[in-house]
């Protein structure tokens, strides 16, 4: 496949590599030490403060940079199949590698939707062909992600579906959600909900409030999120099923989730960088790159998201990568497509919360590695010997600036355009092979 052309390291590092002088951080194990890590045959062989390797083992001096498990991005849209003009799997894999992401969960609301076992297998193989990115597709929760008839969870699970969701579309019918939660439980799977009541969100372009009023934009009340979260928590209680709320963005919804977790219900959630780094003022001047779904919120909600990251209410940070091209975005605000590119900035924006003192480095890495690994039942997301050598080496202090147009990969629609960040990926390893840097 021609997609390999961008991978100059394809044949390298298959045997062994010793990374020395690294700050080894494994959030799941609470590990934070200076030392070395040995890669053998694509897996982590050992690590420790004074590790030696056989003579002639290639060595990489990390110069004190952080070596952590490769990031696991549990929510991203790929352009394939159906929207190759926005992003291809090869271009998404380039952006992911540059962002330190080695595993990515792809949403199923593609064209056609991932409601057929053969399509899932196709996508998984396309991921394998990149050599740098494991693609774990979600199966469609309903046929064609239309919210009506339940998809074949069992057959899709066998074909590799990691969980089930209708992607950017909420499962609006309470009955459909109940059946999905109940049926998925039999297969040990969870349902990912886009928590936004569609009847309240229809036609909206921004969070309802003063700013939307001043800009003259149709609003979506923030309560559209908490209403659906409240309903689905009740359905999780009824069915015993596991619901996972994606890109949670409001304090009210997070309070409900916090309560559900305290009650012992099987409820988890993630958020995405825009919701703890930006607030609704980012859409001022009708900046369509900041038009997202759900829309950016008031600053009080942003602060609530930061607090929920710190107190463990939020289980994971996902990129919520939504590739859009210029034609999708160069439109009057209400007509422009929602969605932001997020692969290259996932780590950097998260690190901003570490530099800001809201999260410890281990907390931040847990949200990007060990937590999603646990949720998705993966063997990655750890530095434990025997695990696949999916790794990211990054310098948490190195500065850079996000510039739409110069980001890796095809999609350039970053809501963080112009943002100065501290923390940059030096190298990314996939199964022991250096795939970036």
């Amino acid at each position, binding site marked *: 496949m021609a997609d390999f052309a961008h991978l100059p390291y394809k044949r390298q590092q298959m045997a062994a590599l010793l990374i020395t002088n690294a700050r080894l951080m494994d959030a799941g194990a609470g590990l934070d030490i200076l030392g070395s890590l040995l890669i053998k045959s694509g897996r982590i062989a050992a690590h420790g403060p004074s590790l030696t390797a056989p003579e002639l083992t290639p060595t990489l001096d990390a110069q004190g940079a952080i070596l952590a498990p490769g990031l696991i991005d549990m929510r991203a849209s790929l352009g394939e199949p159906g929207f190759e003009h926005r992003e291809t799997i090869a271009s998404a894999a380039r952006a992911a590698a540059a962002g330190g992401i080695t595993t990515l969960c792809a949403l199923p609301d593609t064209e056609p939707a991932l409601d057929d076992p053969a399509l899932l297998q196709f996508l998984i193989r396309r991921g394998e062909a990149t050599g740098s990115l494991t693609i774990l597709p979600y199966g469609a929760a309903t046929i064609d992600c239309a919210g009506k*008839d339940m998809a074949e969870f*069992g057959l899709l699970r066998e074909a590799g579906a990691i969980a089930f969701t209708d992607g950017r579309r909420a499962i609006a019918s309470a009955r459909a959600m109940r*059946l999905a939660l109940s*049926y998925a439980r*039999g297969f040990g799977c969870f349902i990912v909900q886009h928590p936004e009541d569609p009847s309240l969100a229809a036609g909206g372009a921004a969070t309802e409030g003063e700013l939307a009023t001043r800009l003259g934009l149709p609003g979506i009340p923030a309560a559209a999120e908490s209403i659906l979260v409240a309903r689905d928590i009740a359905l999780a209680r009824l069915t015993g099923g596991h619901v996972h709320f994606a890109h949670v963005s409001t304090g009210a919804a997070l309070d409900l989730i916090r309560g559900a977790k305290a009650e012992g219900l099987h409820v988890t959630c993630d958020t995405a960088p825009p919701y703890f780094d930006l607030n609704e003022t980012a859409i001022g001047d009708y900046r369509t790159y900041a038009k997202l779904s759900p829309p950016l919120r008031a600053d009080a909600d942003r602060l609530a998201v930061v607090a929920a990251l710190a107190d463990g209410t939020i289980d994971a940070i996902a990129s919520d990568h939504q590739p859009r091209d210029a034609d999708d975005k160069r439109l009057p605000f209400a007509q422009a497509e929602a969605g932001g590119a997020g692969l290259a900035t996932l780590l950097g924006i998260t690190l901003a919360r570490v530099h800001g003192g809201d999260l410890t480095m281990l907390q931040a890495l847990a949200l990007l590695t060990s937590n999603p690994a646990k949720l998705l039942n993966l063997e990655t997301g750890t530095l434990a010997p025997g695990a696949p050598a999916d790794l990211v080496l990054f310098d948490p202090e190195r500065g850079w600036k996000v510039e739409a147009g110069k980001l890796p990969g095809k999609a350039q629609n970053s809501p963080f355009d112009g943002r100065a960040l501290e923390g940059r990926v030096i190298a990314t390893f996939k199964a022991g092979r250096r795939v970036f840097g």
Partner: protein
Amino acid sequence: MPTPPRHLLAIEGLEPPHIADMLDLAENYALLNRSGKTQRDLLKGRTLINLFFEDSTRTRTSFELAGKRLGADVINMAVSTSSVNKGETLLDTASTLNAMQCDLLVIRHAQSGAPALLSQKVEAAVINAGDGTHEHPTQALLDALTIRRHKGHLDNLVIAICGDVLHSRVARSNIHLLLTMGARVRIVGPPTLIPAEAARLGVEIFHTMREGLAGADVVMMLRLQKERMAGGLVPSSREFFRFFGLDAEKLAYAKSDAIVMHPGPMNRGVEIDSAIADDPVRSVIGEQVEMGVACRMAVLDLLARNLRRNTRI
């Protein structure tokens, strides 16, 4: 021993001796039927009415045959030919039947509780031949008799009831009967086809055939109706068959001498593979039908002994 009930409306509430008596008597009728002898004087002069508000071939025929073998006058009233279609209520029907001096009334109805309602208003002994998603007592009796003939007893057997338990009156009657007689009952199916709070009935619940069938003595399959797919409880019949349809691979999880049962009519390739349904060693589906006649003879015989109206026409 408590008084035997005047009607057979449900298995739930029956005591073990009642059930054992019915099974013992049914066993005798099974032997009698096989010997080719008859007892045509037992219900001579008695009137048996088969009142079927739902289509049924095998249950109605089975009751008809049972009644005739015991010498009763058997009349079949199907819904399509009765005045119910003209707006007559269930209770109007009851007074009509009383006027006809019916002795034994076999009723099947789509509404749970319809036979119980009728039993309050008719003089006849009422036999529930299936009401909604409530019970189908004679099916449970014939299943128990079939199991007992193969395994020698019911207590401590592990019995897996698989598939659409939610809508199954057969499953409910079997659960009550088998638990009453000391068996261990499991129900196996996707969570969408398991009734709420089913564990409180005393069964164990499983969502995979591998776990649910492990070590089972009896595998009882239920019919999955096509409308369940349309109702969205199961995504497709191919998925249902893959995960819950009984084939050789899944049957291998059960004990090597486990028997396979199905109340019929079967959806081959949906809940059961033809190779299993027709397996002469494992499948006892044919014998279930045979035991159905014997059990219904026993039920008619026992209820006729307690009839309020003791005069015969």
